[in-house]
């Protein structure tokens, strides 16, 4: 069976060289025009303050050559890969192993995460990175409620993160409240803002909803920047208190936790403590989401995502359904924000730009919109990848943008496929078990 399939491929290979070459040449030409002025010329402020320009034809030639080469490589890859949409049949034995691996990955990952502070106790960098990844896992899971479950595209999620962070920072610095008192308050305040945003956008859907949430996120950020008397404006809020262990501070003094336990003080204790706080918060988010999913409200969210009109026809109150989704998602964003503030000790509006929203949304979409495990893996990949490119510094966002475009083209449904609704009609039962079981991650 394989021989006839291979033959046309071989036959069509001969004239392809000219085609590939032509295509690469066109790409290079387009690139030459595109980059001629933007890369070939560099504008700089001259000695007298006026703009002067320098030519950079070397770089221009390099970029155009890279496009030429890249185009050939892409075209060759495409031919080698075969036509898009070919289904590769995996033997059942491999499929079974994969299914086992998939089922095992969540518990293994969880146990590993629990052990990270033990294994990497001396490596501060890895612990910090772990905390960062977990923060984004939590944000991803929070946004997943809104985007993945209820299907409401939210581009301003960072607003709730900001509300949580500023709630904690301001309550703690002005009234001296502790982290554990402020944490629920931050969540409640963020949920309140979620409802506030939810009301006006109830009638909107799709892209309109996206743009309004984006505008909302920007409004919150602009208000934070400009309301200087309350928020400190662009200078932010500093010396935000650190969390305590049930009232016992993690300080080197006599009343510190280390002294009480009779062990030697180490600054790493606080990092480990923070690690477990965010892990607990993230797991709480996950657990609540999984439980809510089995309640009528969770079912209503999924129904809303699938078809809003049908939802209304069936008598589901779309107003409360949408508002609860916004409020729940926002609450977790608020928790994460409060944690962010206490971890950093300093917050400023710069941390709450649209880029953050886009990053969290990218995590959710990459994770497959609704899959809890997928979101965790996507957060690990994204933030880990971000760290890998730390050395490239200014190219980081460029690579991030490119990665977003390429991933959308390659896997529009995310790394781990689209999550099917939790409940099925009888005929949909044939769907493989790995899709159905994901919710346990």
């Amino acid at each position, binding site marked *: 069976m394989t021989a006839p399939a291979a033959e046309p491929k071989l036959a069509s290979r001969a004239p392809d060289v000219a085609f590939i070459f032509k295509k690469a040449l066109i790409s290079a030409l387009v690139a030459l025009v595109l980059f001629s002025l933007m890369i070939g010329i560099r504008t*700089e402020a001259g000695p007298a303050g006026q703009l002067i320009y320098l030519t950079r034809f070397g770089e221009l030639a390099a970029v155009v050559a890279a496009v030429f080469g890249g185009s050939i490589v892409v075209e060759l890859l495409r031919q080698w890969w075969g036509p898009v949409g070919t289904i590769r049949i995996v033997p059942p034995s491999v499929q079974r192993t994969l299914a086992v691996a998939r089922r095992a990955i969540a518990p293994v990952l969880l146990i590993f995460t629990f052990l990270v502070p033990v294994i990497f106790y001396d490596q501060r960098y890895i612990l910090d990175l772990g905390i960062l990844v977990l923060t984004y896992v939590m944000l991803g899971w929070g946004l997943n409620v809104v985007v993945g479950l209820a299907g409401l595209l939210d581009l301003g999620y960072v607003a709730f993160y900001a509300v949580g962070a500023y709630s904690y920072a301001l309550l703690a610095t002005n009234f001296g409240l502790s982290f554990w008192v402020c944490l629920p308050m931050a969540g409640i305040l963020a949920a309140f803002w979620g409802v506030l945003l939810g009301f006006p956008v109830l009638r909107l859907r799709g*892209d309109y909803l996206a743009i309004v949430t984006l505008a909302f996120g920007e409004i919150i950020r602009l208000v934070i920047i400009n309301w200087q008397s309350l928020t400190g404006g662009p200078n932010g809020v500093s010396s935000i208190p650190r969390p305590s262990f049930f009232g016992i501070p993690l300080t080197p003094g006599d009343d510190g936790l280390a002294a009480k336990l009779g062990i030697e003080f180490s600054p790493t204790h606080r990092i480990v403590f923070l690690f477990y706080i965010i892990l607990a918060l993230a797991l709480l988010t996950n657990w609540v989401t999984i439980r809510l999913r089995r309640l009528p409200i969770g079912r209503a969210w999924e129904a809303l995502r699938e078809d809003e009109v049908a939802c209304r026809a069936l008598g589901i109150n779309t107003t409360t359904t949408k508002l609860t989704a916004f409020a729940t998602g926002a609450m977790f964003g608020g928790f994460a924000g409060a944690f962010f503030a206490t971890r950093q000790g300093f917050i400023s509006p710069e941390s709450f730009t649209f880029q953050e929203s886009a990053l969290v949304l990218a995590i959710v979409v990459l994770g497959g919109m609704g899959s809890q495990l997928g979101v965790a893996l996507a957060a690990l990949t994204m933030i880990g990848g971000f760290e890998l490119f730390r050395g490239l510094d200014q190219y980081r966002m*460029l690579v991030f943008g490119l990665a977003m*475009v390429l991933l959308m083209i390659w896997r529009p449904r995310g790394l781990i496929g689209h999550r099917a609704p939790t409940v099925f009609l009888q005929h949909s039962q044939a769907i493989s078990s790995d899709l159905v079981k994901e919710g346990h991650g």
Partner: protein
Amino acid sequence: MDYFAQQLINGIVLGSIYGLIAIGYTMVYGIVGMINFAHGDIFMIGGFIALITFLILVSIGLTVVPVILLIVLLVSMAITALYGWTVERIAYRPLRHSFRLAPMLSAIGMSFVLTNYSQIAQGARVKPVPPIITGGYTLHEGSGGFVVQLSNVQIIVVVTTIVLLAIFTWLVARTRLGRDMRACEQDQTMAGLLGVDVDRTISMTFVIGAALAAVAGMMYLLYYGLVDFFMGFVAGIKAFTAAVLGGIGSLPGAMLGGLLIGLIETLWSAYFSVEYKDVAAFSILIIVLIFLPTGLLGRPEVEKV
């Protein structure tokens, strides 16, 4: 009153720029049904290309201002149009029949790429240019010493906008391309069956939108005398607001929305607070969508099951 008249002039000029960008949004939304997030950055690229062309022309000794302006306009339109085409080709065409969120995320990614690309290529600093066109007319001298002025730059911005809009309206209403575009907007499949090259038409939509955004970028450069790599984001959202305000999919609506947003922003800055002018623009977006989801000139959307 004089103060108000002056702000009115400023608002109309700013509104023309927004309107030119908004047309790109509204056209793309009308045909492909997606928000082209990268459009604001296309506008920014247009501004940069205009700046660089201008610098080159001045350095080779060209001094005739109208000639400079014409060359800058054409070069900037041509190259930026190619940017629009490339963005569509790379980031949107492969996702044409993908699920709803994919093109939007791809567009956000593309917007990051363009922003950071120009930051890397041209640096993060604001690029100022000396005023290219100087002079103007004093329309009215008030008793309090306040003068209402209409500068030549403002005249050029408004006149260029009107001329381009006339050309553009003719293009959409009278040419084969315009007819194809309207056909694709109504029903892509049917248009394709009737022999319209849908892919080409969509490409051309992006090209035209980008060319108009390039003009807006150049006008911005002339009017404010500076460009920077981040100006596309806020201008993009405001132009999108304008498109929504005018009724998305409607071309005169985009221009009307642009003018209104420009006026509101200018008057807000003049009478209330400059710091909150963006908040005002974004709040208007939200208010419009709540009370007037179809915009001023838009058609109501039919809900299909």
